[in-house]
């Protein structure tokens, strides 16, 4: 690997990452050396600029052919492009959210740190989505995790925040260890950490013992990742962490971090297990044989998420459970593999919908809770009368989360259902659970709307919305409705740009 090899690499493929990295470093230096009285809030705009630049460079890379550099550890394939686009988009929204974050206490001294820790987390997620081997994947995952541990504990003097981050560290640590242990077995049975190579080895595997280990590895990795996406029964941390974390961080966890979890699942499962052989005769049906476990986890997640959300009084906790449920819906798509035709665009679209609606909801929560100092459901009361536009925006998000037609959430769910029904035999039980979960979710989602529209006004204080939050709300509302009414904009985009994601496995 000499100078020439280095020059021969297409470094442009890593441009978005470099931009984010550079922004992070600039931000951290600025935060360090700028005088104390300087308002760190302005750094948000710098961070946003960085993200937008990265986004632009990514867009300019869209027409790039699939490249893999650094001996196939870093791949820029359509999968990576698609998910990075989403990650950057979500990140931009969350930065705007954070810009307007004004809690009763805290974040004053650490506001500057928030932005660059956030960007490092984003960087981790981006690296993950482009990773071509296990090491990059793992390092990206940990970059994301470690940054988010700190982000959760950002409010250093708030006990809840401390507790939340401690819980997150412990749970995250355990899950990391389990994932890693699984990965070590994967390495053991294939003798490589390159995903493409591993997939070839695993497809050709006929040794029963090795397959047994592979199964073990599958479970371990899956359990570890389930922690990350907060799938039941590994979801226990989510409500506590969401409650304790600053609101933008909670939004980040529920959107970006979750997305990253699905990125690993897809990367690993699609490139490794989908074509792994499932028996000693070399039939490539490993995932077919084992997706019952994913499916049951998905079902369980949906049930627990929705049912427990019913009795939550704290908004953030409620949305923690709601996001657990949504992870369940997405897992349905993974378990059914989108029926074989819809997997990646389903997951992508759903995640995009989720970015829009969930960040929107968190924007409203943040606005109301920082103004009233409480996170109880009752702070929503009378919002419909006090500020009807905000209430309308909130309604749009909630309807979308509930999967009501005309919103992105509906199209997303529709996609998932298509995948469950298209196969023969169809996954009717899973679909049944999902639909039942949706109905149950109506109860608590509409319970919020009842607060908003049917209850007397909670406090007369005028709600001041910072421009950043305004932007978030407007973007989210427009996006939620637009992609609900004309989802083809998104579908055409992914089909035109990314085709069928066929360059997923084949290297170079």
């Amino acid at each position, binding site marked *: *690997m*000499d*100078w020439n*090899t*280095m020059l021969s690499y297409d470094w442009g493929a890593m441009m978005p990452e470099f931009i984010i990295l550079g922004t992070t*470093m600039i931000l*951290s*230096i600025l935060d*360090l*050396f700028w005088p104390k009285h300087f308002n760190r809030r302005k750094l948000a705009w710098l961070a946003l600029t960085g993200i937008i630049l990265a986004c632009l460079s990514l867009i300019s890379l869209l027409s790039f052919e699939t490249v893999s550099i650094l001996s196939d550890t870093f791949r820029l394939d359509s999968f990576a492009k698609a998910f990075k686009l989403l990650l950057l988009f979500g990140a931009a929204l969350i930065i705007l959210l954070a810009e307007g974050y004004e809690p009763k206490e805290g974040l004053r001294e650490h506001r500057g740190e928030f932005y660059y820790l956030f960007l490092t987390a984003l960087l981790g997620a981006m690296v993950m989505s482009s990773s071509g081997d296990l090491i990059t994947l793992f390092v990206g995952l940990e970059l994301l995790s470690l940054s988010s541990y700190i982000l959760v504990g950002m409010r250093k003097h708030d006990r809840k925040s401390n507790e939340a981050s401690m819980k997150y560290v412990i749970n995250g640590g355990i899950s990391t260890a389990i994932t890693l242990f699984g990965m070590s077995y994967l390495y053991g049975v294939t003798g490589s950490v390159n995903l493409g190579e591993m997939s070839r080895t695993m497809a050709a595997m006929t040794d029963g013992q090795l397959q047994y280990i592979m199964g073990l590895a599958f479970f371990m990795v899956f359990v570890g990742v389930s922690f990350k996406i907060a799938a039941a029964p590994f979801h226990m941390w989510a409500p506590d962490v969401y409650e304790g974390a600053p609101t933008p961080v909670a939004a980040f966890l529920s959107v970006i971090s979750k997305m990253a979890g699905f990125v690993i699942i897809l990367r690993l499962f699609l490139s490794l297990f989908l074509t792994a052989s499932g028996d000693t005769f070399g039939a490539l049906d490993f995932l077919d044989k084992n997706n019952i476990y994913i499916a049951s986890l998905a079902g369980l997640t949906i049930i627990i998420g929705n049912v427990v959300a019913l009795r939550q009084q704290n908004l953030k906790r409620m949305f923690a459970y709601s996001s657990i449920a949504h992870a369940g819906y997405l897992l349905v798509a993974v378990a059914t593999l989108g029926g074989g035709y819809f997997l990646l665009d389903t997951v992508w679209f759903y995640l995009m919908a989720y970015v829009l609606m969930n960040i929107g909801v968190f924007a409203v929560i943040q606005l109301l809770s920082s103004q009233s100092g409480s996170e109880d459901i009752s702070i929503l009361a009378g919002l419909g009368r006090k500020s009807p536009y905000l209430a309308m925006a909130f309604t749009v998000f909630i309807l979308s989360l509930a999967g009501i037609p005309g919103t992105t959430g509906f199209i997303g769910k529709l996609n998932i259902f298509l995948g469950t029904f298209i196969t023969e035999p169809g996954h009717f039980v899973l679909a049944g659970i999902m639909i039942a979960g949706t109905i149950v979710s109506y109860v608590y989602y509409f319970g919020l709307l009842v607060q908003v529209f049917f209850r007397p006004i909670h406090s007369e204080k005028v709600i001041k919305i910072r421009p950043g939050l305004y932007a978030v709300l407007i973007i989210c509302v427009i996006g939620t409705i637009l992609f609900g009414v004309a989802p083809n904009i998104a579908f055409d985009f992914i089909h035109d740009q990314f085709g069928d994601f066929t360059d997923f496995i084949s290297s170079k």
Partner: protein
Amino acid sequence: MGQLHIYQNNYLIVFVFLCLGILLPVIALFLGRLLRPYKPTDMKYTTYESGIDPFQDSRVQFNVRYYLFGLMFVIFDVETVFLYPWAVAYDELGLFALIEMLFFVVILMLGLIYAWKKKVLKWN
């Protein structure tokens, strides 16, 4: 086979040293027991502190500095984990690796500057 045996024997030696390192104190202390007197009085077993028993447990909260240095150590010690293999293989890696490592170290230095600026390295 020869190479392997050398390899194994060398580590056997290391193991021998480990055993010896543990055995010596054990034996010495055991022998010492035979030689030394044993005349316990209460005073002998008090903690050394102005002649009276300390009022409370000595294991009070440590200064937070110690932890911070501990954390710093962990981070920078791990940095060397990467520096060593890099240094060993540097001949084969060349300029590219140098730049890569520079990148890595600059980021870590940023961490050091951060700690410096945040007064972590101050001992008070």
